[in-house]
């Protein structure tokens, strides 16, 4: 079988596997549901997720260890992932192929020529990684201030890594100068640290997920393509799925895909930070694409279908090559090979970068994270509308782990987890926030799906016991996402004397976190005088009531001296009179002229903040369907100690 055919089979296989994972990410045990499918596997294979979270947290979480396999294979083989595995790459590959059909060979060759803009993706990678490395730098500086011996080990390691990275990225053969740059940067950091308290200036922010193709393609398929495709078929979801701001996710996806019609694999060549990382990692690949000696007549046919625009006809650019193997197949003279010996026509082993570019992008990245934090959104200026899923880490830790992949939003059975816009600041774009209006209910009491699908533990995989504060967690209590607040100006019983308490009824915790205060309130224009009365009915002077309006079981007659216990429930009313229940006849019968009030029994909902978990079922069910009369905000959420509402008491 031809190597190109094998590649196509591989791409098709991984693409189908990826789509299958997206389709089956619904909670349940059916064959088209979650069961035990490793639906986040592609995210775990993605070494940018692993590297990003290592930089921000210093740990490699659970399944992300799969990235080691990708890294090892890339170091040996080059960018195989891009050409053989990546589902987003497969989409680009196919659309690019479709877009250039019918074009002449020379036009195809022109489309695949190397462009200097292809180095932009490396700068994107540097910005993203530098932004994620703030806390690592902080720990180095802290060690320096502590004067510990570990500091010098850290500095040594940092210099070694820096030099290695600079060599690997090979700032165009100016390795000695690059070494100098790295040393100056490190020196500057240490110097700054001696004069200033640096912790405040330093923050780590994981923004790789914005452009990392794997989170991007997960997010786009799960939050945009599937809900769109399923809206009529309804095979995947029980009803229409909604995602707030999904248009922006879809627009980025469509833009990335349609750009293939202008230049094939546009995203892979110019934008993809994961491809850039693979380009750097493949620096010492054992096998490479290259020219054999002799034979080549410079017909350039090898470049007609070159996916990476890596110039196989001349000095092949190793970091750009995605191992599509088309050149191997297209060459009529058998003068291109994938082998250990270097290309006869020479190779460009390093990305095409300038020293200035590297310095500027690294520095911008390091500055960007503290700059974004200046808004105080992860500190005192926190936004109470940002309600995170149950088990989410405290905001600043959360932002060091969330890769915006949207898996939690996909799996949530009630469709309440949504991609944030700017509610959580610049850094929080497309991170999960809860919206209790859109979904089919609130956060289900007995569900912990989001934390178990999260590939980076930005939402911890909590147990039901922990969520509900049972057994080992009795002392810690339930996990609270926020607290419900009654808007007394909008609530039907509070503001308009109408009975309701849907919120109290639907509150799922026991004892209920919503309690009611029972009051009897004289209705608007409800003070009358008796015209005449008998044991069960009373005619009123100057009354003009709506017949039947007071017969709902919620209205009562109050005579002078009546207390709440002695009020009589109205069973029926005419325009001018009311009848009361047979269980409590008038005794004595009120004489004409007696003042009489018509009262409504109201149950006014109030919140017990010790019991409320912020699950939002009340907000979802509130009949004031626009801006709800009971709304959850993140107050008292258990993930942030300083958002607590109540005085903490320790029982002995």
């Amino acid at each position: 079988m031809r190597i190109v055919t094998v590649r196509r089979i591989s791409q098709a296989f991984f693409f189908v596997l990826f789509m299958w994972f997206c389709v089956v990410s619904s909670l349940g045990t059916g064959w088209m549901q979650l069961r035990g499918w490793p639906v986040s596997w592609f995210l775990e294979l993605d070494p940018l997720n692993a590297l990003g979270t290592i930089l921000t947290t210093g740990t490699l979480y659970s399944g992300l260890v799969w990235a080691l396999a990708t890294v090892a294979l890339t170091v040996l083989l080059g960018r195989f992932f891009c050409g053989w595995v990546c589902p987003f790459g497969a989409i680009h590959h196919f659309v690019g192929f479709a877009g250039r059909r019918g074009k002449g060979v020379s036009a195809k060759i022109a489309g695949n020529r190397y462009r200097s803009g292809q180095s932009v993706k490396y700068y994107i990678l540097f910005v993203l990684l530098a932004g994620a490395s703030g806390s690592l730098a902080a720990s180095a500086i802290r060690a320096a201030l502590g004067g510990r011996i570990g500091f010098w080990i850290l500095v040594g390691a940092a210099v070694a890594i820096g030099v290695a990275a600079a060599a690997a990225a090979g700032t165009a053969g100016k390795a000695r100068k690059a070494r100098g740059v790295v040393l100056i940067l490190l020196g500057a950091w240490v110097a700054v640290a001696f004069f200033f308290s640096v912790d405040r200036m330093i923050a780590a922010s994981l923004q790789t997920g914005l452009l990392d193709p794997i989170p991007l393609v997960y997010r786009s398929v799960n939050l945009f393509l599937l809900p769109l495709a399923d809206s009529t078929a309804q095979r995947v979801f029980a009803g229409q799925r909604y995602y707030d701001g999904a248009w922006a996710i879809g627009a980025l996806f469509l833009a990335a895909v349609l750009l293939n019609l202008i230049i094939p694999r546009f995203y892979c060549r110019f934008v993809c930070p994961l491809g850039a990382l693979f380009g750097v990692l493949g620096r010492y690949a054992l096998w490479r694409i290259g020219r054999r000696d002799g034979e080549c007549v410079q017909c350039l046919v090898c470049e007609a279908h070159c996916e990476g625009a890596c110039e196989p006809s001349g000095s092949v650019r190793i970091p750009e090559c995605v191992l599509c193997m088309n050149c191997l197949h297209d060459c009529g003279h058998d003068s291109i090979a994938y082998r250990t010996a270097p290309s006869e026509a020479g190779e460009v082993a390093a990305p095409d970068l300038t020293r200035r570019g590297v310095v500027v992008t690294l520095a911008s990245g390091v500055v960007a994270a503290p700059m974004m934090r200046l808004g105080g959104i992860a500190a005192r200026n926190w936004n109470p509308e940002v309600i995170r899923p149950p088990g989410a880490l405290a905001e600043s830790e959360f932002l060091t782990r969330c890769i915006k992949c949207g898996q939690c939003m996909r799996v949530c059975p009630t469709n309440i987890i949504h991609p944030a816009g700017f509610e959580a600041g610049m850094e929080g774009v497309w991170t999960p926030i809860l919206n209790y209006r859109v979904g089919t209910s609130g956060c289900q009491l007995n569900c912990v799906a989001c934390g178990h699908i999260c590939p980076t533990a930005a939402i911890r995989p909590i147990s039901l016991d922990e969520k509900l504060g049972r057994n080992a967690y009795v002392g810690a209590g339930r996990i609270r996402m926020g607290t419900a607040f009654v808007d007394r100006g909008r609530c039907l019983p509070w503001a308009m004397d109408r009975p309701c308490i849907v919120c109290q009824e639907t509150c799922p915790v026991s004892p209920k976190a919503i309690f009611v205060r029972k009051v009897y309130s004289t209705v608007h224009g409800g003070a009358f005088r008796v015209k005449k009365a008998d044991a069960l009915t009373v005619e009123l002077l100057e009354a003009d009531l709506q017949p039947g309006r007071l017969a709902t079981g919620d209205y009562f007659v109050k005579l002078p001296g009546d207390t709440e216990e002695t009020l009589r429930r109205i069973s029926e009313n005419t325009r001018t009179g009311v009848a009361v229940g047979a269980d409590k006849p008038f005794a004595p019968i009120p004489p004409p002229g007696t003042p009489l009030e018509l009262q409504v029994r109201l149950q006014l909902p109030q919140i017990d903040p010790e019991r409320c978990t912020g699950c939002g079922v009340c907000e979802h069910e509130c009949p004031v369907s626009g801006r709800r009369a009971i709304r959850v905000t993140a107050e008292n959420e258990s993930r942030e100690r300083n958002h607590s509402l109540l005085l903490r008491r320790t029982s002995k």
Partner: protein
Amino acid sequence: MNASDEKGLSRREFFIRAAKAGACIAAAGYLGYRLYDPTGPVGSGRIEPASVVLPDFSIPELRGKMAIATGSDRIKSINAALKPLGGMETFIKKGDRVLIKVNAVIASPASLSATTHPGLLAEVVRLCLQAGASSAIVTDNPINDPESCFALTGIGPAARSAGASVILPREGLFRFGSVPGGALIKDWPLLYAPFEGVNKVIGLAPLKDHHRSGASMTMKNWYGLLGGRRNVFHQDIHNIIKELAMMVRPTLVILDGTTAMMTNGPTGGSLSDLKQTDTMIVSTDQVAADAFGATLLGRTVYDLPFILKAQEAGVGTADYESLDPARVQAG
């Protein structure tokens, strides 16, 4: 110039071009004429939707039947209660297509008794099929996410394993419906599709406290057939329960008072909300069933105005003793 232009257009070509232009103008004119709307839109809120009415599923000669069984085993109690009425065969005949309306209100385990007990449901399905029913459908439109509700309460698996099919509410299953003589349920979305092709309806409700109305029993159970933003009906809870009872005329209702939820209703959530009341009520009169159920909760018909309202509307009788209910001890 002009001369050469005129020369370029032959008479034949001129006619062809004129004919095409004329056809375009005619088509535009015709379209304009057909689409012309001199008054503008009426606003979708003012359009009267085509409304459906649920048919009567009761059996006239079996009106006013009631049996009360005591015992802590639901399977034994339901069989014991059905026995004096002649068994399920009295109500379900060969070839009947039965709809069982359960209460799956919230996604909580069966042990908390906020929902229809799955074991009881399985037994009722089994009895229906044994009596010759050709199909049994189980449905409800709960508060929480329907899929989670049916899964976590055990209702979904129990129904399926007993041989019934479960219909989860989806947008396409609702139709606008009305209640003849009703004031509240008018052109309101009803979970109607499951009723299509069905000729027998059984209401299977747990006995629960309900903070707003006082109690949730067989009549309140029909609330789960309403769609839309039904929570507005809480403003007139007793009349909406009355109208629900007018809307559904079931073949049979079963009120499961084996374990009653005494407080924190209708969702409960704690074993301390529950009390063993060891009673199973089977009746063709939902008002009578609820009136008796109220006594188990320690309430009177005057505490629960919807009962007398339903009686007044002619749905049934609150004086359950007048039906001479059969009282049996189960197993």
